[in-house]
């Protein structure tokens, strides 16, 4: 909301420095976005009267003028063709500045002294539209009665400072000069000047002689006020009004239209003006449009309506879209003789929906959407009539046709000073509270506050507390860290700790944490080769997505991670090490089943076992020791020979492996893309952070190595399990340290090398004992796996 200071001054005395004023408004809740002094670049330009004009001795197109600028007479050389003796014109004096960084200094032109420059409107960066009496090409000739030596900024209304305020949506009353002035009055602690409206009403007859008003769509329009102006003379409105409108961001048009806009800005009530000549049957009816009813609005576009839209119609046709825009068929023209002013109240939700549906938002609809005060409509129309008389734009007819149902009534709230101070933690005297509330337009009746209807946001004690606190100063409230009367303990829950340990473990593994979008394109599931009947195809679809790429909630993290790998490899990052602990989303009876998933992605200088090591690090960090890995050759996303399911208590809790080559190609990810996904929730239950010290062994261990050759499909995990079962007690550990295929090894076989650690708790083991165990191991392996010693 742009508010010229000069306009605010109609309602409150503002003599503070502009910076101080802005700061006071901001800290009391009417935030200043910025301010702008229209003529800030112009200085030293004054009005002057041409006393004499004579030819320049050294030029046939230059003239020399003596110009009276009030306190002195300047000699000025000019080449302008339109200057005449007696004209009053703008003079840029010595050392003056003009827009676009121009500085004027005195000097000689063809040998004759020139103590300044006569200005055109272009040189002052103004337009003919703003100043219609200026001439197109030549010096700007000012009004005959202009005083001499006057600052041109004052003459042109450029001395006004325009402040832009951010208005919060609960304060629709502040989308007006009066609303902001009321805030200023409380912020500056000065009275609010609300002048009563004085009307002469010289028009013939009464308003209801000219027009009959009815409201059919009572649910969409709660009030309709109509006023009549006769003997209208359409002309430009005066400079002061044009300048205020322009400064507030509205284009001046003509006196009648300008008055409606002026009232909208000043009072926050949208208005419309019809040419009564085109209102057929002297009737206004507010009704719903018919389906497919057509109207050409003031922006010269044809609109096709339906029953949800409210229109203003005469006896035969729609003449306006209620609250949004008038129609061409009844607009004010240069020939308008009789005007009908409309000031009405429309349903805010309906206006919002209609404006959106029709794709047209006007100043008027923007205001109605916010929900206005129906009581303001009558005041606004009277103010418009007052302006008509002030501008001599026509004769106001007595009375206003005012059709309405019940109007809002002021709310009464008890002023509970004790409770307000309790809530704020302050000690504000009740008299101070009352003083602020009165400045804001409230009335005090003993212990009650009567809240005016333009403040529907105030409904209870907390709202009053805010009004009091705003002007007491939020920053004057004394801080106190004693919260209530009870003590609470802050901690992370078990699950939150599990997540933190997982995160910290993955960081320690050298992985970078990523954040990916929770929604994906369903096409990603095709790219992953997920079968049509997979549960991953059962996803939540967003009704209004930003696009196909963001249209469904992900049911797998793999495509998100593959995209990260692709993004980095395509930017020549040689090695990728990433993880994310995030959610997948699955349909559920209530809301959704949101599952937390750990995802790891690797590429570049890594293999399956690097990835598996990370999985093992996760489970170990949570104290979970019995995780199993079982080969999975059926998963369409992964390499058939390099994929394992992760099992905990015989339940698949995750999958890891190299991504299938055709899948990585689909995602433009590297061939050596390795991905691990693991559900978090099964880990919560099993994770334990209790840890008991195991004594360091007192007796030495015996080490034995053994290399065997077995069929390639024999699983090492099975060998280890079998060995552990075969030799109990003294076998402390079995470690695989080499796998080898090819070379001297028969095709279809592989060589596995294990290191066995034997130890007894109570003695040093004899060689014999260890040899016996090794024999047993070898016998068992050759029996169970057809293993041969290498």
């Amino acid at each position, binding site marked *: 909301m742009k508010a010229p200071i000069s306009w605010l001054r109609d309602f409150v005395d503002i003599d503070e420095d502009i910076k101080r004023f802005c700061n006071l408004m*901001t*800290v*009391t*809740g009417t*935030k200043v976005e910025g301010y702008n002094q229209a003529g800030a670049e112009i200085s030293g330009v004054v009005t002057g009267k041409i006393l004499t004009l004579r030819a320049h001795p050294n030029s046939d197109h230059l003239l020399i003028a003596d110009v009276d600028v009030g306190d002195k007479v300047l000699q000025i050389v000019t080449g302008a063709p339109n200057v005449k003796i007696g004209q009053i014109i703008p003079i840029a004096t010595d050392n003056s500045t003009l827009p676009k960084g121009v500085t004027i200094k005195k000097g000689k032109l063809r040998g004759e002294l020139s103590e300044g420059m006569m200005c055109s409107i272009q040189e002052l960066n103004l337009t003919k539209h703003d100043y219609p009496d200026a001439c197109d090409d030549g010096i700007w000739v000012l009004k005959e009665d202009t005083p001499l030596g006057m600052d041109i900024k004052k003459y042109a209304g450029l001395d006004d400072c325009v402040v832009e305020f951010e208005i919060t*949506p*609960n*304060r629709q009353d502040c989308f007006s000069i009066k609303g902001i002035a009321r805030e200023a009055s409380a912020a500056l602690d000065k009275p609010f000047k609300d002048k009563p409206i004085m009307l002469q009403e010289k028009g013939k007859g009464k308003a209801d002689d000219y027009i009959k008003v009815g409201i059919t769509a009572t649910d969409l329009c709660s009030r309709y006020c109509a006023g009549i102006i006769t003997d209208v003379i359409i002309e430009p409105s005066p400079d002061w009004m044009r300048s205020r409108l322009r400064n507030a961001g509205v284009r001046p048009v003509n006196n009648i239209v300008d008055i409606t806009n002026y009232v909208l800005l000043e009072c926050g009530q949208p208005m419309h003006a019809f040419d009564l000549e085109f209102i057929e049957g002297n009737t206004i009816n507010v009704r719903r449009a018919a389906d497919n009813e057509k109207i050409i609005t003031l922006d010269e576009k044809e609109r096709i309506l339906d029953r949800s839209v409210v229109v203003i119609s005469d006896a035969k046709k729609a003449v306006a879209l209620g609250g949004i825009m008038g129609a061409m068929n009844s607009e004010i023209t240069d020939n308008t003789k009789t005007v009908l002013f409309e000031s009405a109240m429309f349903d*805010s939700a309906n206006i*919002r929906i209609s404006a959106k549906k029709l794709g047209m938002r006007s100043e008027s609809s923007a205001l109605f959407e916010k929900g206005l005060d129906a009581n303001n409509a009558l005041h606004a129309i009277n103010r418009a009539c007052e302006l008509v008389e002030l501008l001599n734009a026509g004769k106001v007819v007595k009375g206003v046709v005012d059709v309405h149902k019940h109007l809002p009534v002021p709310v009464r709230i008890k002023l509970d000073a004790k409770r307000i101070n*309790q*809530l*704020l933690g*302050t000690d504000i005297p009740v008299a101070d509270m009352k003083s602020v509330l009165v400045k804001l337009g409230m009335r005090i009746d003993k212990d009650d506050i009567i809240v005016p209807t333009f403040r529907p946001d105030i409904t209870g*004690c*907390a709202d009053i*507390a*805010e009004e009091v*606190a*705003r002007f007491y100063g*939020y920053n004057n*409230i*004394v*801080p106190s*860290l*004693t*919260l*209530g*009367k*009870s*003590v*609470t*303990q*802050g901690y*992370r*829950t078990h699950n939150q700790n599990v997540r933190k340990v997982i*995160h910290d473990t*993955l*960081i320690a593994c*050298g992985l*970078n*944490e990523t*954040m*990916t*979008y*929770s929604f994906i394109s369903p096409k990603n599931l095709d790219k992953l080769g997920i079968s049509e009947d997979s549960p991953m195809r059962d996803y*939540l679809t*967003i*009704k*209004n997505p*930003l696009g196909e790429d963001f249209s469904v909630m992900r049911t797998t993290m793999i495509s998100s991670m593959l995209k990260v790998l692709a*993004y980095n490899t395509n*930017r020549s990052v040689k090695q990728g*090490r*990433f993880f994310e602990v995030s*959610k997948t*989303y699955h349909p559920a009876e209530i*809301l*959704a089943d*949101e599952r937390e998933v750990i995802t790891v992605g690797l590429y570049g200088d890594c293999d399956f076992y690097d990835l598996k090591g990370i999985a093992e690090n996760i489970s170990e960090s949570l104290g979970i020791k019995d995780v199993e890995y079982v080969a999975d050759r059926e998963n369409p996303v992964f390499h058939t020979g390099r994929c394992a399911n992760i099992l905990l208590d015989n339940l698949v809790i995750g999958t890891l492996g190299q991504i299938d080559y055709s899948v990585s190609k689909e995602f433009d990810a590297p061939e050596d893309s390795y991905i691990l996904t693991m559900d978090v929730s099964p880990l919560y239950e099993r994770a334990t952070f209790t840890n008991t010290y195991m004594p360091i062994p007192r007796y030495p261990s015996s080490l034995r190595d053994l290399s065997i050759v077995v069929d390639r499909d024999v699983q090492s995990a099975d060998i280890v399990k079998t060995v552990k079962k075969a030799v109990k007690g003294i076998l402390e550990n079995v470690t695989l340290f080499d796998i080898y295929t090819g070379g001297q090894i028969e095709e279809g076989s592989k060589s596995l090398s294990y290191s066995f650690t034997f130890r007894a708790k109570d003695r040093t083991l004899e060689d014999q004992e260890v040899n016996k165990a090794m024999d047993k191991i070898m016998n068992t392996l050759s029996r169970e796996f057809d293993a041969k010693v290498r």
Partner: protein
Amino acid sequence: MLQLDVMLKNAEREILSATDMKKIEELKVQYLGKKGELTQVLRGMSALAPEDRPAAGKAANDAREKLNQLFSDAEKIISDKAVKERLYEERLDVTVPGRKQDIGHTHPLTQVIRKIENIFIGLGYQIAEGPEVESVHYNFDQLNAPDNHPSRDEQDTFYFDAEKLLRTQTSPVQARVMENNAPPIRIICPGRVYRADEVDATHSPIFHQIEALVVDKDITMGNLVATLKLFAKEMFGEETEVRLRPHYFPFTEPSAEVDVSCWVCKGKGCPVCKYEGFIEILGAGMVHPNVLRNCGIDPDIYSGFAFGLGVERTAMAVFGINDLRLFYENDARFLSQF
């Protein structure tokens, strides 16, 4: 006797000129070995008269000691020199970078969330979580959002159907906690939220918020101010100043926007704070009585405060990041900077 002196002189000359251990060992054999020169001299002593023998014996022992001393001195010099040479040979270019371990990096948004979590855990708060796929009831109705509030529009909010949506704020978690727990309540709610904004340098359809909520008897706005000041100092530095401006949020009344003094220029004005000296970082206020009532808490007995901040905005300000998209592109060269 003359023989011994001659031998010692020769020996001394030869030992001192020896440059390696091998030569020393040879000389040891030559002089002290079984067939060495000293032995030869001693053997010759058997021919001496008995009264001369003690003196000769002493001279011989002195000579042996002298030889031993010469050898050990020479050995030390040679080995010291060898060590020195080895050290010299093994010299490195110490300006070559070290061999670093790959340490992973926590996402900057997680870093901000963690830091805030830790501050509030220290103040007796717990971390509350809730669903991202939420109901209209919790996301809007319970939070006092007016029926035709534009934030409810499909233009702003992602819907699955008329009842189900992606939460636009973490506040529904507060409503859920208030419904299920009696005061005292002190929680913070970090999490992912969603708004239908096209992606650009300052907007993302997915972002993160952290909100705090305290409900108890006698909670005042003074408590809110104190908590905000403490938080700002912990988060942005000891000298940080806090400034509250009245604002509007449906959820709170009174409501405030909170600016903190710029941690780069300390309030003097710089590009980070756009020369304002302060940066707007939080929304805050006293919990609206309607919200308390909706969640089954009697506003005549209890009061509370709440505040919230955008994690992305904060991280951008703290780390000097100028484009929000970087958080979700996951470029390793970005992630590894934090």
